[in-house]
C-alpha cells in the first residue's frame, strides 16, 4: 500500500488554493485565496510563505521564479504548482473529509452547512 502523506488543515487549504488558481498561483494570489477559504479567520502572509516552503520541502509543490516585473519594482514572482504527490495528498485529504462528513451526518441525523459571510 503506497505511503500516504498526511496534510494538516492549513496545508490542505494552501494546496486547494494553488489548485484553484491554476497558472496564476504566486504569493499574492495564493494568500488572497487562502484568506477567502479560511474566512472569517485571518491569515498572515508569513504563515502562507512558511507553509509553501514546508510543502515544497515535502515534494508536494514545485516553484520557479518568473521574469522580473515592472509593477513589482523589477522583481520576479515565485510561482507554485502542485506536483503529482501533492495532488494525490489533496485527493486523499478530500476523501477523508468526505468520510468524516458522512459519519457526522449519520450520527447527528443530518448536518446543515452554515454559510459564513
Amino acid at each position, binding site marked *: 500500500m503506497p*505511503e500516504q*502523506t498526511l496534510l494538516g488543515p492549513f496545508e490542505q487549504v494552501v494546496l486547494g488554493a494553488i489548485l484553484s488558481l491554476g497558472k496564476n498561483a*504566486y*504569493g*499574492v494570489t495564493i*494568500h488572497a485565496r487562502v484568506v477567502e477559504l479560511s474566512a472569517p479567520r485571518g491569515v*498572515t*502572509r*508569513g*504563515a502562507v*510563505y*512558511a507553509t509553501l*516552503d*514546508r510543502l*515544497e*520541502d*515535502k*515534494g*508536494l509543490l*514545485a*516553484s*520557479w*521564479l518568473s521574469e522580473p*516585473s515592472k*509593477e*513589482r*519594482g523589477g*522583481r*520576479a*514572482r*515565485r510561482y507554485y*504548482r502542485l*506536483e503529482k*504527490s501533492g495532488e494525490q495528498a489533496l485527493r486523499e485529504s478530500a476523501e477523508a473529509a468526505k468520510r468524516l462528513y458522512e459519519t457526522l451526518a449519520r450520527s447527528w441525523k443530518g448536518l446543515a452547512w452554515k454559510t459564513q459571510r
Partner: protein
Amino acid sequence: MEDAALTPPALLEWAVERLLPVPARESVLGDLSEVYRGPWQYLREAAATVPRVAAGHAWRNANFPALGLNGALIWFCLGGLRANGRGLDTPTVALAVAAGLAALILIQMYGDAGRPSGARAIKGAIWTVGLVVLLCVWNFGLRYQRIGGGDYLLEFGMLQALPFVLPVLGLLRTGLLLQSDRQAERLADGSFALEDEHRAFSAAVRRGNWIESAGLIATGCAAPALAGPGLWLPAIFLVTAAYLLAQNILRPAGDEGLRGCYRRQLQARRQLRHFLSWLWAAPLLMAACRLLVWPGYESGRAILVSLGSSAIVSICFLARAADSECAGLLRERMARLEAGPA
C-alpha cells in the same frame, strides 16, 4: 506620478530587504511591493511577514548536530567548566556559546555566502599580516617598558622577519582559490539534471565523510599532545567522527521530495563544513596558546607571545578562507538548484 505613489519608500524597502533571509528576498519583497497601499500598511504587512519567513528559514536550514558540536567547541575553547585550567566562568561561557550559535545562524541567513574574488582574498591576506605586525609591535612596545633579558635585541631582530609570512599566506590562499575554481568549473560544465547532480553530490559527501572521519579519529587521539591534557577536545573529535560515519550509514527518514532533500543536504553541509573548518584549526590554536603565548607571558619573552599570536591570526585566516571557499561552492550548487527547472 501614480506609479510613484504606489511604490514603497526606498528606505523602508531597503530595511525590510535587510531583515529578510537572502533566498526569500526577491519574491517576498516583490509581493509586498505589489500589495503596497501606503507606508503604514507596508510596515504592518512586513511585521506580519518577515518574522515568520526568517524563523521558518532558520528552522528549515538548521543542522542541529553541527550546531551542537559547534557549541561544544566554543565551550571548550573558552574554558567552559575550566577543563583546561584557564578560562572564563561558566555562566559567561554559556552566554558566549549562545551568542556564538545565534551569530552562526544569522550569518548563514543573511551573510553573502558567495566565493570571495581573488582580489578580496589577497586583500584578506594583507590585512592579516598587518594585524600580525600590529600585535608584534604592541607586544614589544609593552615589553619595552620593562626591558629585561639579554636576548631582547635578538628577539626584536627576529620580529623584523615576521612580515615575510605574507607570501606564505598569499600562496596558501591562492592555492585554496585555484582549487575551488577548478571545482566550480566542473560544476558549471553541463546542464542541470537534479537526479544526477544530487547523486554526484551525495557520493562525494560519502567519500569525504569516510576520509574525514578517519582523520578526525587520528587527530582526536593526538589532540592531547597539541592542546594539552583534558578529554573535551578529543571527545569532540570522536563524536564528530561518529556523526560523519552515522551520516554515511543511516538513511534519512522523512517525507521530503528530491528537491527538498537536496536543498536541505546543501544547507546542512554548509553548516557542518563551517564547524569542521574551525574544528581542524582548534588543536593548532590551542597549541599556539599553550606552547608560545602563555609561556611567553609567564617568562616575559615577547618574541614567544608575538610568534604565538601571529600563528593564531594566520591559522584563523586560513580556517576562515577554507570555510568561505566551501560555503561559496555550496552556494553555487544551491543557486543551480533554485534556477533549475521545476
